[in-house]
């Protein structure tokens, strides 16, 4: 019989056995036994103290998305746990593996409105893949094993382990067995041969096929398979926002971004395609526009690891229930090599129009007062990092412009809150991403609104010297809402002008190098100084508030009904 140890120590040993070396968190009453044990394991587990639990969980998300490993976050009961809710929902929407560990009041007090008691499992169930409460120390290690298995297999997602304080202090033997099987859960379904051959037949006969590459490619690390298949059959690829870095921006078959503010080519041609191979994407309404007008002439083959995505918003003709990697690698040998030059080239007429009518005025901007446009800044920063940094965005115009104008060479390079659109995600996620992959450059684009939602996390940068480059696209407005007010609410700017602090001074208070960029003439050099600086840097860029993201498919319109500017719809010739 091995000796008995406390539940807290069991937890920490189980985390170590699970391969965890980094956790984000914030202590409090009911999780103190765990923090006390953590103090003895600082050589094995690095704990990053956030300044708010929301910051901790977004950092864990950034860590997970950049590194591909599950992110771990620890919080206390009650308010600590509740502050995780937004991040859990964000991670659920964007299929991010998160293991959240929350303290809970003593078992004997549960259900009696004890100090800082929240009904964590009930609150979290709708925003997690799985949640469990543990009341006995001997149940901790199995719960941890199960949690990691669930969080990182199949369609990844967030899980919660809510541990009563007495389970942390009581003693039990430690025995760790990794979880590899749950009877009620199959994260690795087999693909029937016949489905594969049917899919191959449809693709081989296609005249105008298109691949829609989603986040599932990044999650399954299926970038090579995607590119091989696209190249072999000469199939153009459109990417969802979270699928963007799955194929290099410069690849001739990468036709760009899908959806509301995506590129003209892939959106117009979605409705021209005769076959659509959708891989690890879920036909989100921001991608499809009005589904009744979506891809009318296409047979749709849908690959997803989550069976509940099939026919959810868009009906498919054939679905392949598997991970992107398994499905693509099994399809590849069945696909005939083909050349489809005419179809592939048909994207370029739209690219030319977009380049001429939309991108040029954004990139080669010339405002009289020298205020800059977001696209121009993003374009320059991307270039300054050799188009090979990890892009992290917040939410709003800063996000839409940066995913449009940033370029990618390597996989796992686009980290943004896609499904939930969580303002305040950016700063902590960038910190977590840099901690997850310290050898890569991490650039955050953030608005003045979103930065202030989690600005306290500048404290994490200060304390841990996290080298993230923060580009604040400061238009002194809640820009994205302002854009909609301009377009759809008669320019009535209700509650969108921002009275802002002096961000440079704020950064300085945290010992973070910062620079104001008031005028276009200062931009190039300021970017160079930011890139050259060894450490975190905040660039406060003076953005023209009139700037709007185009092209745009307004809500309720078909994916090919696209505004080039506030007045004019695109009419392809």
């Amino acid at each position, binding site marked *: 019989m091995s000796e008995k140890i406390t539940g807290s120590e069991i937890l920490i040993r189980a985390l170590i056995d699970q391969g965890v070396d980094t956790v984000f968190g914030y202590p409090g009453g009911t999780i103190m036994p765990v923090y006390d044990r953590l103090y003895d394991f600082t050589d094995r587990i690095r704990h990053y103290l956030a300044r708010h639990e929301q910051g901790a969980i977004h950092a864990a998300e950034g860590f997970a998305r950049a590194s591909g490993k599950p992110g771990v976050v620890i919080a206390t009961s009650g308010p600590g746990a509740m502050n995780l809710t937004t991040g859990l929902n964000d991670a659920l929407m964007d299929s991010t593996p998160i293991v959240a560990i929350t303290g809970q009041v003593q078992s004997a007090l549960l259900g009696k409105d004890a100090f800082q008691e929240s009904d964590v*499992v*009930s609150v979290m*169930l*709708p925003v997690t*893949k*799985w*949640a469990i*409460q543990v009341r006995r120390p001997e149940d901790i290690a199995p719960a941890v094993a199960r949690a990691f298995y*669930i969080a990182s297999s199949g369609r990844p997602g967030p899980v919660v382990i809510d541990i009563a304080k007495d389970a942390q202090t009581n003693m039990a033997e430690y025995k760790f067995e990794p979880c*590899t*099987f*749950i*009877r*009620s*859960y*199959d994260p*690795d379904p087999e693909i029937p041969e016949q489905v594969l051959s049917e899919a191959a037949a449809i693709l081989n006969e296609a005249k105008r096929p298109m691949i829609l590459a989603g986040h599932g490619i990044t999650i399954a690390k299926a970038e090579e398979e995607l590119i091989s298949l696209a190249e072999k059959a000469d199939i153009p690829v459109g990417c969802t926002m979270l699928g963007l870095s799955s194929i290099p921006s410069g690849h001739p078959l990468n036709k760009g971004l899908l959806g509301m503010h995506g590129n003209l080519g892939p959106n117009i041609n979605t409705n021209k395609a005769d076959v659509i191979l959708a891989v690890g994407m879920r036909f989100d309404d921001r991608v499809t526009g009005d589904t009744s007008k979506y891809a009318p002439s296409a047979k749709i083959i849908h690959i997803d690891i*989550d*069976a*509940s995505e*099939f*026919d*959810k918003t868009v009906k498919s003709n054939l679905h392949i229930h598997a991970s992107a990697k398994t499905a693509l690698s099994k399809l590849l040998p069945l696909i005939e090599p083909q050349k489809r030059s005419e179809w592939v080239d048909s994207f370029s007429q739209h690219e030319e129009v977009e380049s001429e009518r939309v991108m040029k005025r954004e990139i080669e901007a010339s405002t009289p007062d020298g205020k800059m446009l977001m696209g121009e800044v993003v374009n320059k920063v991307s270039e300054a990092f050799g188009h090979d940094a990890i892009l992290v965005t917040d939410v709003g115009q800063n996000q839409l412009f940066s995913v449009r104008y940033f370029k990618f060479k390597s996989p796992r390079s686009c980290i943004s809150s896609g499904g939930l659109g969580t303002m305040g995600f950016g700063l902590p996620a960038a910190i977590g991403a840099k901690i997850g992959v310290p050898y890569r450059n991490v650039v955050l684009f953030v608005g003045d609104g979103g930065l202030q939602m989690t600005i306290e996390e500048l404290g994490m940068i200060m304390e841990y010297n996290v080298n993230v480059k923060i580009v604040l696209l400061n238009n002194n407005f809640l820009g994205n809402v302002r854009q909609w007010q301009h377009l759809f609410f008669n320019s009535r700017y209700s509650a969108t002008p921002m009275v802002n602090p002096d961000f440079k001074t704020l950064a300085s208070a945290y010992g973070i190098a910062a620079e104001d960029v008031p005028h276009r003439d200062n931009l190039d050099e300021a970017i160079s100084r930011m890139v050259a600086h060894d450490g975190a840097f905040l660039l406060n860029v003076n953005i023209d508030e009139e700037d709007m993201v185009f092209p745009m498919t307004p809500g309720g319109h078909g994916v090919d009904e696209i505004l080039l500017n506030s007045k004019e719809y695109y009419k392809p010739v």
Partner: protein
Amino acid sequence: MENQLFTISVFTENQVSLLHQISMIFSRRCLNIESLSVSACSIPGVHKFTITCCSYRAMMEHVVKQIEKRIDVLKAFLHTDDEIVFQEVALYKVPTASVLESNIEDIVRGNGARVLEIHPEYTVFEKTGHTDEITELFDKLKVLGLRQFVRSGRIAVTKAPEELVSDYLDRQERRRQDINNE
């Protein structure tokens, strides 16, 4: 997209919070659960929820997938009435005096009901049947001054030869063995 009554059977592990996990899928979509019945099924350790809900097929298919997506759910199935054999049970409590004044034989025989208890104050009838049959007896006993009435949720078995979940469990058992042999 016409609404009709569907029956959903859900096979789950026997665990805390499953009812919440399933009911939140309905409430999120503003779907009203008409009836619900939960108990162990013929396979040891497996529990079965029988849920009825009025909606259109595409919505119900979507709901079934969302239920199945929950980790602790084994499998969920959607049925229409013609695919299942189903039953409800109801208890009716009526003052014994008014029962004695009426034709008991007609109540019992004519409606396929049973007497469960006779007390000087009240008599309890039981009836199993379909919703409309139970309602029919309800209407008759109401006139006699019905004191209490309760109706169970629908329970149902399929017309398939085995529990529908068996295939899934067999497949998972093979997976488990493969994983252990790796």
